[in-house]
């Protein structure tokens, strides 16, 4: 080779190295990075195959102590189905000994380096990639091994490629760590949810078991006849049952599913009423202050639930005063709220900025630390030694169901400020809902069909009805009720129909009864919410009663229907 040819060859080699070096590190994605570089190498060096192997322990997602090496890139991919080799593979031993080497078909060591399919000729050039792995290049038509000079020509650019592979693996590890962190966060959130659910279930069980203990104990005492009248035990049962009903009401409030008997309400009036009611229950150490705005914009709310909210917050504030004498201030007012103002609030359905009426309950008691604030609205969460319940959880449920918002700001040792927002409305006072009926006349006659799948409910209602001098028929599900109604509809004056039953539910039975007698007088009952019954508008039942049913409500409803019966019969 003459001097000119030698210079031309060096120039050409340098130019090829320039092209190859510019193809290194074009992407942080491992496959793309390998592809950009190795396609060029294959094209310029007339190669048929290339693959990249890395230590299994460095492959993203692998165990830190995973043994052996894994193939992370192969072109063409079909040729290299073998994805991993052990540390004891002869290829690994050779790579550990030599930073680069070449073997050709026919060499004694050729079979040691073959990890691909269909290799029956050609030569391999193999380069160690730093401490990460190795690179295999294969020329299918080459009869002899790559020379030391040929291997050296690529050495530096391959070293550069090794660094880029390390960079890609680091990048993948960082991304994998980020993915793991997010997964852990999701798991923690899930665990917190489950913990909350456990707390809720445990709290409900605890409170109900206490109440059931009272009821069962009182029933036993009544049976034993220790009290001549049994009145004391019955009083106990009634009180416990009443508290159980309250607890259910709180649960529904927490779930935001309680029946809302909404009306146009002046919040300041409700607060005044509550303050009168709580005067005897709040701590005597609390100096109560009221700053109630007059002529507040109205809000649409369930007055009873509003009372519950105010009472709960005022009680909590007074209890925060601990042993010290302190101040509890209750204030109302109206405010225009921006979207930014709503940040930091627990929000109801409506997250729109606009005109709101606020209730502030402020104390200068012990305050609440950040960890406690996080769990303040969890059901049955309490910092008090005694007393469990739904307290603030129910308050949150009520606020949400009123499309309101609540925020707690507190500094430990200085006090707490709770602000509740309710959307203001500009509406006229609606017509009050007409009462279902009054128990004006208890000496009515009539036949009541009682339909409920719970035997105890059927029995209790039957006895109550009969005690009022009415006749009772019973059925255990909708199908049976329809059969009874079909046979005796002329003598049945009122149907007490449970909504949720096996075989045939109340809704279907109701429709069937109307087909038999379009004037059937049906009172629907449910252990869930009023909303369930109230969604039935076509046909609409004569009345809806939510369980537990108090006898007064029951006979008010029955009485009104019996009166209507009388009127219509008179016609």
């Amino acid at each position, binding site marked *: 080779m003459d001097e000119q040819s030698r210079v031309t060859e060096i120039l050409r080699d340098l130019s090829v190295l*320039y092209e190859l070096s510019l193809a290194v590190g074009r992407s942080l994605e491992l496959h793309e990075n390998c592809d950009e570089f190795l396609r060029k190498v294959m094209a310029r060096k007339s190669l048929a195959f290339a693959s990249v192997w890395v230590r299994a322990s460095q492959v993203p997602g692998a165990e830190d102590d995973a043994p052996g090496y894994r193939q992370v890139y192969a072109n*063409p991919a*079909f040729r290299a189905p073998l994805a991993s080799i052990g540390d004891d593979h002869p290829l690994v031993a050779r790579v550990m000994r030599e930073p680069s080497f070449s073997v050709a078909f026919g060499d004694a060591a050729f079979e040691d380096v073959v990890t691909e399919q269909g290799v029956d000729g050609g030569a391999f050039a193999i380069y160690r990639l730093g401490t990460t792995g190795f690179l295999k290049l294969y020329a299918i038509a080459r009869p002899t091994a790559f020379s030391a000079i040929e291997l050296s020509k690529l050495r530096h650019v391959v070293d550069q490629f090794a660094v880029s592979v390390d960079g890609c693996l680091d990048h993948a590890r960082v991304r994998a760590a980020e993915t793991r962190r997010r997964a852990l966060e999701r798991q923690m959130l899930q665990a917190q949810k489950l913990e909350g659910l456990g707390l809720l279930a445990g709290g409900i069980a605890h409170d109900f078991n206490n109440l059931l203990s009272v009821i069962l104990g009182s029933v036993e005492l009544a049976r034993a006849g220790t009290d001549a009248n049994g009145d004391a035990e019955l009083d106990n049962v009634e009180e416990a049952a009443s508290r159980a009903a309250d607890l259910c009401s709180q649960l529904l409030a927490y779930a935001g599913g309680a029946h809302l008997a909404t009306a146009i309400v002046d919040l300041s009036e409700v607060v005044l009423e509550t303050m009168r009611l709580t005067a005897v229950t709040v701590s005597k150490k609390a100096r109560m202050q009221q700053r109630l705005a007059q002529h507040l914009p109205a809000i649409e709310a369930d007055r009873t639930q509003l009372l519950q909210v105010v009472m709960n917050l005022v009680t909590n504030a007074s209890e925060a005063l601990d042993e010290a004498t302190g101040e509890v201030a209750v204030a109302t007012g109206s405010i225009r709220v921006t979207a930014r103002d709503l940040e930091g609030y627990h929000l109801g359905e409506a997250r729109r900025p606009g005109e709101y009426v606020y209730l502030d309950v402020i104390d200068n008691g012990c305050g609440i630390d950040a960890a406690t604030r996080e769990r303040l609205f969890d059901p049955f969460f309490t910092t008090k030694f005694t007393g469990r319940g739904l307290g603030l959880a129910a308050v949150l449920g009520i606020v949400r169901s009123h499309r309101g918002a609540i925020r707690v700001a507190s500094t430990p040792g200085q006090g707490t400020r709770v602000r509740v927002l309710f959307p203001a409305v500009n509406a006229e006072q609606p017509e009050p809902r007409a009462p279902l009926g009054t128990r004006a006349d208890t000496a009515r006659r009539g036949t009541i069909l009682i339909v409920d799948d719970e035997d105890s409910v059927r029995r209790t209602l039957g006895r109550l009805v009969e005690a009022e001098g009415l006749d009772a028929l019973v059925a255990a599900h909708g199908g049976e009720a329809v059969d009874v109604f079909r046979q005796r509809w002329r003598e049945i004056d009122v149907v007490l129909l449970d909504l949720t039953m096996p075989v045939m539910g109340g809704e279907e039975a109701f429709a069937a009864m109307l087909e038999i007698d379009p004037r059937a007088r049906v009172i629907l009952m449910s252990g869930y919410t009023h909303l369930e019954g109230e969604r039935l508008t076509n046909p609409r039942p004569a009345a809806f009663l939510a369980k537990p049913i108090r006898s007064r409500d029951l006979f008010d409803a029955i009485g009104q229907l019996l009166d209507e019966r009388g009127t219509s019969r008179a016609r």
Partner: protein
Amino acid sequence: MAHSMPASKHVARVRSSTPEAIRAAAAELDLGPRALLTVLVAEKGAPDLEGIVAALRDLDVEFFGGLFPGLIEGQSHVDEGALLIVQPSDTPPLLITGLHDADFEIPAIEPLDTTAFGTQTAFVLVDGLTANVSRLLAELHGRLGNTVHYVGGGAGSLSLVQRPCVFTRNGVYQDAAVVGFVARQSRFGVRHGWKQLAGPIVATRSHGNVVQELNWRNAYEVYAETIQPYLDEALTEDGFFDATKGFPFGIFKEGLEDVVRDPIAKGANGELLCVGEVPENAVLNILRGDRTSLIEAAALAAKDCLVGDPPTDPSVFVVDCVSRTLFLEDDFERELAVVGEHVAELGASAVPLGILSLGEISSHGQGLVEFFNKTIVIAVLHG
């Protein structure tokens, strides 16, 4: 009217490229259950490709094909009519569309049976004026590697006006490729005969088939400076195509002839438009050829195919760049004659048949599949 050449039920030469004539000729061929019909149509007379596809669709046979500037028939070439070749196949032709879009997708390919037939042969016909041909070939190689040998070329018109030019029984397509998988083995000779005039030169700025900079300077300036001393007249924009047809680029490929890239036009800003992609930072040479070196290369390509044991039942398929006909002019028949003389030793059945193409495709039978320019690819199919 159909004339078979050679007299065979597997090949038909049709003088007319009307749908009726092509269908009639195809119907006389041995269209058995494994038959794959290759339909190669010459561009003269503006053949009705849609009509041809509709006519052939009546026959119970898989087919694929394309429109080309010319056809090779023995030791001569023609620019009208059609060539029909029936070969065995167990895989329907593959259609790849949307090649003008860099994100084109290749449909799933079933693994080929290499146990019964050895390495099969893939006939790749691609719209020669579309983009991303090199990427298409790289993707095909990535999927199939060397389980097949690749041969084929660029379809289209010598006018260099792009139009729908490849087809299957599903229709006629532009910016597309069709691949016919033939259950026969093959040997290849790939040569061009262009020699290095200047280089190395680095394509420091390029995009697809447009070279914008050479050695960090305006591409046209560098190119013109290099070839001007070898031209009889000053290089002008109007005379660019004629003057440069003898001075193509060669992309360096170690141990093999350069992959030729033909600069066919100069852009407004001095960029050079080539047939086929020039990767950015690729090492180029500027090549020069003469009639003798090109014809000698064709002879060497033919000889390359003859290396090894005598093949059984051989047939010869030639893909020759249409630019070689323009460069060799009357001597092009000599090139075909040389090829014919060499492959004649394979027997009477080994009459060269093929296409004049806009770019040639081959894997050299071994490494990556390449898209060449100004090159002759000779395939001997056997078994």
